[in-house]
């Protein structure tokens, strides 16, 4: 167990450190990325297309939606190639390979916390008052981590053998971005599709965040729903990866 933890820690720190080496702005990118994505999207969907957000400033609305989306998307983009990038390690050294995709997922946790701080700062700037309950928003990282880890384990192992899976998933991520209430409020979703959207843990995280920030409403139901959805995905991902691991060494 301590071996696993040490591997996760060392790999995650390796990824974070090497990400910002040979870069002038370095760790500033953690701040720039969420702000830049929010600025771009708010220009298109807040100024040009004007999506209604029930009175919430659109930029702030986006930051609250991108908090979990960016964490999921950025973690996943890294993790799906975890085995391919570390081919040398996979085929030439002996250690539990499941730590590779998982460490890439974990390497995005600091970004998440910075994004959360940025969200709170703009929340104050727009004249809202902070509430101690907002801590609960961080708690939602638990089901999202499980969900992200589960999916990453499945896709990274498949991707190692057939690169097609990486491509398919890239397309799927575009679909998922629009199918998740990030740029629009969940109230805009027609009734017959609502259940479908709630089956996506990221949607649950975003709706939870917004209901708490803008309606002061704690949706425990969403937390438990996403936990119930994520746990089996994580368990399946672990089993699937460990089964695949034995084959991957010869097929990657």
């Amino acid at each position: 167990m301590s071996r696993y933890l040490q591997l996760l820690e060392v790999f995650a720190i390796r990824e974070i450190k090497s990400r910002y080496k040979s870069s002038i702005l370095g760790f500033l990118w953690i701040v720039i990325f969420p702000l830049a994505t929010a600025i771009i999207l708010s220009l298109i969907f807040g100024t040009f297309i004007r999506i209604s957000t029930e009175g919430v400033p659109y930029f702030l609305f986006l930051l609250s939606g991108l908090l979990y989306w960016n964490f999921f998307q950025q973690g996943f983009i890294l993790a799906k190639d975890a085995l391919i990038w570390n081919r040398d390690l996979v085929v030439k050294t002996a250690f539990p390979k499941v730590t590779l995709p998982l460490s890439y997922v974990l390497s995005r946790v600091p970004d998440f916390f910075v994004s959360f701080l940025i969200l709170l700062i703009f929340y104050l700037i727009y004249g809202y008052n902070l509430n101690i309950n907002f801590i609960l928003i961080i708690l939602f990282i638990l089901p999202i981590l499980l969900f992200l880890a589960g999916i990453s384990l499945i896709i990274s192992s498949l991707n190692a053998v057939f690169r097609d899976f990486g491509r398919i998933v890239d397309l799927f991520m575009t679909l998922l971005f629009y199918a998740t209430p990030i740029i629009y409020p969940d109230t805009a979703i027609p009734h017959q599709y609502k259940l479908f959207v709630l089956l996506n843990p990221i949607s649950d995280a975003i709706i939870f965040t917004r209901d708490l920030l803008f309606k002061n409403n704690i949706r425990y139901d969403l937390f438990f729903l996403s936990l119930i959805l994520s746990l089996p995905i994580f368990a399946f991902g672990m089993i699937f990866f460990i089964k695949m691991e034995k084959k991957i060494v010869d097929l990657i």
Partner: protein
Amino acid sequence: MNSTAILLKNVTKRYYLEKPRTLKRWFSSLFSPYGRFTVIKNFSSIVNKGEFVLVTGPNGCGKTTLLKLIAGITLPDAGSIKTYGKVVPLIELGAGFNYELTGMENILINATILGIDKKIIKTKTRDIVEFSGLKSFVDVPLKRYSSGMVSRLAFSIAISSEPEILLLDEIFAVGDEEFKERSFSKLSEFHNNRVTILLTTHFEKFIRIKPDRIINLQKTNYHNILRD
């Protein structure tokens, strides 16, 4: 009091080979894109604790595969492999090094992969740096190292891992005379301390330790590669 270190029983290993992908064959390759090719066939051997074993044979005969099988990096298709004691494989010097990071940072990563506990790594870092002779380079990114320096660092980390079974794959192709000399004297020291060592090589005459045994692997029949 010869106890067993490695037990190989009827081990067979077959690799996958991609079939040629032309448009015509594309559909059939979708269903079974791999041909198989046998590297090691029905191989049995017992290595005793403390033995120094040379593994020789031509290219492609399965020397590296044998080490990978013993290390558990890849699994056999048939047969069984048992090892008794801590196995440290050194299939390629510097596998898994991150070239953007410094030597010091890579010591922590590499030693972790070899299964050394964090606290022990801390106490050994000095010895590792000492043995590698790279004291003035430890805070420089690895991409600025020469390939010989990378190998020295990798070897230094591996020998600090207190192996009971050490698997070395053709590692003396690089490194200068002086480092080779020191490496061999370290191996002799391991040998005297009854560490089991398997070393693959093409250059038997350069090995300065008298082997207790030589495993000579036979060349695989390449004509059978693409026939399953």
